[in-house]
């Protein structure tokens, strides 16, 4: 039963006939896990805490970075360097002192996903990488818990509800993760700060609907929001009976671990220098340039990025222009080694794949991009 104070506090929500005191009590009894306290997790956590959710689990292993502040609205300048779960906990506790907050200052992986999510009723996926998204999806399907999905990139946001037994799961849409480098993340492609605010709020709203059992959740529908055109569309997605995890004869019975596409280093090579057929470390590239070798360095970032930080010997052709410009500007280098550079090594991996499939057989990635170049090979290059 709600106390008079509680009834007063949530009166604007209780007044909604679909929610009422009954719904408010369901919210107070609910346990929600939020995976990732970034652009999506921040608004989702705030709105769920404000709505009177009983227990919130905050899962994130990251610390606040200045580049987070344009979209991750729980953090202030003075929080830079602090663990996100700690700062989020302080902020949210001030908003709702009755809330039971569980801090999990670790990265959700395939190995710990089942254990971490087992005690929660519902999961908000606000993660920022494919390995975590697949671990969340697999664990939710196996544990039969609804997974409220959101993702953002540039001006495009997506949301859906993957409810085991009622509709498709993430693997029905995308059976397996893309290869490293095929899909850029926010660090490489950018995102407008208000966009995750919208999508994270949609995720909070869908969670509240599911908990109260009201309305039509986004089950079997992928909502796509285009913020530039300010249009939405919904793709109808059926459950795939052959899905490896939620299909009629599942072959995946435990969450699958994928290599972290954010750190595209071959296992065993992290921290060591290498110069292989298809990849090299920035330190080797710099050493070979310094020794006077005529190593072709191709920078596939955008001009504004090169203006911030660049390698003097590099030739700039933005990734999107490569198909048009490769023949005329690189055609004479088909038999030469071409070392491809970007910000973090993701776009350049795409460029390498494209170049190799178009006759540039000796294209290779500079792993970790100019950011790692600055960290490991030449601190005079600014980081951004």
């Amino acid at each position, binding site marked *: 039963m709600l106390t008079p104070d509680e009834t007063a506090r949530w009166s604007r929500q209780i007044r909604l006939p679909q929610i009422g005191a009954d719904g408010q009590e369901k919210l107070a009894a609910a346990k929600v896990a939020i995976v*990732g306290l970034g*652009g999506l997790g921040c608004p989702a956590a705030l709105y769920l805490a404000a709505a009177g959710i009983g227990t919130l689990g905050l899962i994130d292993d990251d610390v606040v970075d200045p580049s987070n502040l344009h979209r991750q609205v729980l953090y202030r300048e003075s929080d830079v360097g602090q663990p996100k779960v700690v700062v989020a906990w302080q902020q949210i506790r001030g908003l709702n002192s009755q809330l039971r907050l569980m801090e999990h200052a670790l990265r959700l992986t395939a190995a710990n996903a089942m254990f971490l999510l087992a005690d929660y009723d519902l999961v908000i996926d606000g993660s920022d990488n494919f390995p975590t998204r697949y671990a969340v999806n697999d664990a939710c399907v196996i544990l039969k818990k609804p997974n409220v999905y959101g*993702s953002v990139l540039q001006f495009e946001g997506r949301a859906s509800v993957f409810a085991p037994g009622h509709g498709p799961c993430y693997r029905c849409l*995308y059976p397996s*993760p893309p290869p490293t480098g095929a899909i850029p*993340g926010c660090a490489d492609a950018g995102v407008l700060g208000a966009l995750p605010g919208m999508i994270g709020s949609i995720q909070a709203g869908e969670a509240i609907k599911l908990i109260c059992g009201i309305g039509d959740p986004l089950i079997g529908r992928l909502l796509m929001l285009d913020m530039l055109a300010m249009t939405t569309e919904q*793709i109808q997605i059926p459950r795939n009976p052959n899905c490896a995890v939620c299909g009629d004869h599942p072959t995946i019975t435990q969450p699958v671990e994928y290599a972290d596409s954010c750190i595209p280093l071959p296992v065993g090579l992290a921290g060591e220098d290498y110069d292989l057929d298809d990849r090299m470390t920035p330190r080797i590239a710099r050493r070979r340039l310094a020794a006077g070798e005529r190593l072709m360095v191709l920078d596939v970032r955008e001009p504004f990025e090169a203006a911030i930080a660049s390698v003097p010997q590099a030739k700039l052709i933005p*990734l*999107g222009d490569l198909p048009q410009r490769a023949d005329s500007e690189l055609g004479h280098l088909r038999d030469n080694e071409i070392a491809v550079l970007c910000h973090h090594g993701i776009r350049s991996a795409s460029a390498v*794949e494209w170049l190799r499939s178009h006759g540039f057989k000796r294209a290779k990635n500079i792993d970790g991009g100019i950011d790692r170049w600055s960290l490991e090979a030449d601190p005079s290059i600014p980081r951004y």
Partner: protein
Amino acid sequence: MAITVKFFANYRDLMGQSEIAIDTAPELSVADIYTQVLGSKARPELRRVTMFAVNEQYVPADTLVHDGDRVAFIPPVSGG
């Protein structure tokens, strides 16, 4: 037949626009349309993970396209 092709995420960067209207031969599948529209910009590693929709309905790549259809290329996005 006249169809509209809508691009999402990477495909917008790749194609420089969010949709195009094209006139094609009849009896083409979504995969055929993909090959025709992407041309030299085709990237096999992206194609492998692309979800396709026709008229806002998820479809397999071998689905036949009809006059007036809206075909969408939807790669996965992981940002948060």
